[in-house]
């Protein structure tokens, strides 16, 4: 059974004092070094609010009071809506949700061949991840290579909205694209006010480090702010390459970048729902490539979840990544390690890259199912164990009932009543004895996952959207 809205945050490595110092270092970066914002309108808005702007370099320096002001303005509580309100994401303090995969360009198909991702894959993977109970929101899982580049995001959004009832975390190319996608959300949700309250689409914006905001990203952020739409402000520092090599150094820079973007959004429109988002990595100096599966990520995650909580801003991390190219052991351990730490760190949203391999270049149906299994295990741990008068009394009573003269607890009401909440029931993990396992075909995880993926694909169909709505969103999606 699905358990929604579990509490994380059990893992805290730093003290409040350390967080305060960390914040002060960030403020120093924003005030003394600044961020290059390559959009004149945005820079002007900040200048009017008290920032200093260098017309030649585009560097904007943020006075402390401007940042503090923004920290007071963003909503501390955000609801991200879903077509089926059962899947609404209520971003309370430390409430953790997991999300689907992210923008792959390849598919590792059921035969193990790597090929280009197509629209059909986006539809199928969205539908598959819609069926997975531990995946709570859906990003664009693949970028279909058979779609025209013009209007790409809108067409993807149309495919996603048709194939999931969960919240869709999306992206936009420019301000007009934001407005078009908003129109699509309104078509489904009925009216603009409902979208304001619990928008079923949100927008993720990836800024590039170090300390520079491109014109397009800045404009999209400003548009989201103007429309009051939820925006994921994402920074992806690469420690040693686009950010300082130390864990703390990379995170201070990232924090300055995120606070810079948040300050812009809240200056444009106080109350804009912003979500502190990041995908930090290290540069592997041997390979000359960033490492997505690195253990340092666990430290980036614990610091960031804590600083976001210190500010009271909803937070999202990109986790569950692997450097492996195939559905294998490395994919399993890297994903499980990262996801467990991200969940225990207490992010509201774990953009957990369900089904992603090779960083997030390749998507796999089998891996999607395996990742759901990993989340299930972690969520079971997070649900914890209740030590209370009730549970202790019941425990002593059932021990008394069976006692030294009895032989088992299998036929105790206590067992029957608590089984499904106390024990996690695996979907693909094998627990058979050797002989039985052998007789069942000696199947490994990948084969079992493939069977489950095929079964879910054959069976799961989210309720269709009404014809009128389908027509409307298709019309908007095909608009040039």
């Amino acid at each position, binding site marked *: 059974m699905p358990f929604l809205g579990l509490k994380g945050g059990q893992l805290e490595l730093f003290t409040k004092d350390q967080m305060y110092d960390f914040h002060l270092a960030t403020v120093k970066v924003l005030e003394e070094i600044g961020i290059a914002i390559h959009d004149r309108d945005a820079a002007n808005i900040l200048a009017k609010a008290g920032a200093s702007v260098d017309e030649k370099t585009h560097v904007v320096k943020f006075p402390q009071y401007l940042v503090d002001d923004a920290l007071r303005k963003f909503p501390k509580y955000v609801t991200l809506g879903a077509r089926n309100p059962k899947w609404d994401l209520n971003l309370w303090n430390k409430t953790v949700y997991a999300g689907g995969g992210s923008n792959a360009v390849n598919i590792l198909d059921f035969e193990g061949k790597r090929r280009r991702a197509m629209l059909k894959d986006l539809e199928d993977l969205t539908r598959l991840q819609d069926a997975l109970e531990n995946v709570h929101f859906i990003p664009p899982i693949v970028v279909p290579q058979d779609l025209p580049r013009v209007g790409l995001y809108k067409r993807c959004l149309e495919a996603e909205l048709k194939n999931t009832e969960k919240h869709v975390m999306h992206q936009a190319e420019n301000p007009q694209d934001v407005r078009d996608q908003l129109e699509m959300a309104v078509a489904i949700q009925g009216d603009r006010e409902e979208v304001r309250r619990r928008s079923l689409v949100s927008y993720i914006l990836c800024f590039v480090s170090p300390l520079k905001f491109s014109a397009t990203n800045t404009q999209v952020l400003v548009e989201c702010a103007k429309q009051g739409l939820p925006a994921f402000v994402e920074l992806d520092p690469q420690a040693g390459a686009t950010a300082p090599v130390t864990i703390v150094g990379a995170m201070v820079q990232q924090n300055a970048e995120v606070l810079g973007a948040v300050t812009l959004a809240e200056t444009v429109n106080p109350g804009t729902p912003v979500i502190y988002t990041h995908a930090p990595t290290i540069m592997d100096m041997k390979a000359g490539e960033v490492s997505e599966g690195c253990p340092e990520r666990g430290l980036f995650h614990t610091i960031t979840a804590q600083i976001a909580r210190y500010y009271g801003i909803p937070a999202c991390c990109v986790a569950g990544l692997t450097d492996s190219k195939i559905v294998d052991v490395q994919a399993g351990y890297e994903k499980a390690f990262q996801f467990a730490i991200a969940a225990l760190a207490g992010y509201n949203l774990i953009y957990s890259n369900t089904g992603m391999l090779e960083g997030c270049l390749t998507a796999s149906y089998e891996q999607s199912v395996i990742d759901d299994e990993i989340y299930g295990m972690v969520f079971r741990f997070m649900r914890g164990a209740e030590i209370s008068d009730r549970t202790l009394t019941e425990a002593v009573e059932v021990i008394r009932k069976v006692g030294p003269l009895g*032989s*088992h607890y*299998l*036929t105790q009401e206590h*067992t*029957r009543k608590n*089984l499904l909440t106390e024990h996690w029931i695996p979907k693909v993990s094998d627990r058979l*004895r050797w*002989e*039985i396992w052998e007789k069942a075909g000696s199947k490994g995880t990948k084969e079992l996952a493939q069977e489950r993926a095929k079964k879910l694909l054959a069976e799961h169909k989210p309720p269709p959207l009404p014809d009128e709505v389908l027509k409307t969103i298709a019309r908007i999606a095909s608009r040039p």
Partner: protein
Amino acid sequence: MSQSTAILEQLSQAVKSGDVEASKDLTKKALDQNLDPLVLIEQGLAKGLRTVGEAFGRGELFLTDLMFAAEAMKAAVSLVEPILESKHKQREFRGVYVIGTVEGDIHDIGKSIVAATLEANGFKVIDLGADVPNSVFLTRSEELKPDILGMSALLSTTMLQQKIVAEALATRGLRKKLKVMVGGAPVSADWAAEIGADAYGVDANDAAKKALQLVVSR
């Protein structure tokens, strides 16, 4: 649906849902209505337990479901037995199965699960418990004349008892009519062959399947 079909269906349902009280109440009601006690068991209670046993075998139900169903059936059957005796009637079983965990081994749970599964498959099961002395296996085999004797061992040290009992049964000339089955974590098909056992069950469902094969081939 006639009254008796209706109550048989309810009996089966009560066992399926592992409801001990409902199974007992419905059994009393059925006996009051003069339902044939053998029909009551076979087409009511036992049918329910069989359904659960099969579903457990397919991985659709939990072990607790099976054990609760067996418990409900046992409680209900204990109400019917005195009536069967008074009418000199006997239930028809697929076979009689004596089961126990071997001497020096106090592990009871695996054996109990096998016992419940055997009951679900229509065996009359006599459970000797755990840490059963070798001599008790021998005397009970002689007295009860079961079709099958099943011995469970969890420890690699206690599994040797299975061999000792199997050989002693042969020495006493009891093996012609009595089949011997072994099971338990360290036990394997190879071990079963080595000690001359007739079958080995890798888990409870497999044990029931092998037991059925043994009584059919008899």
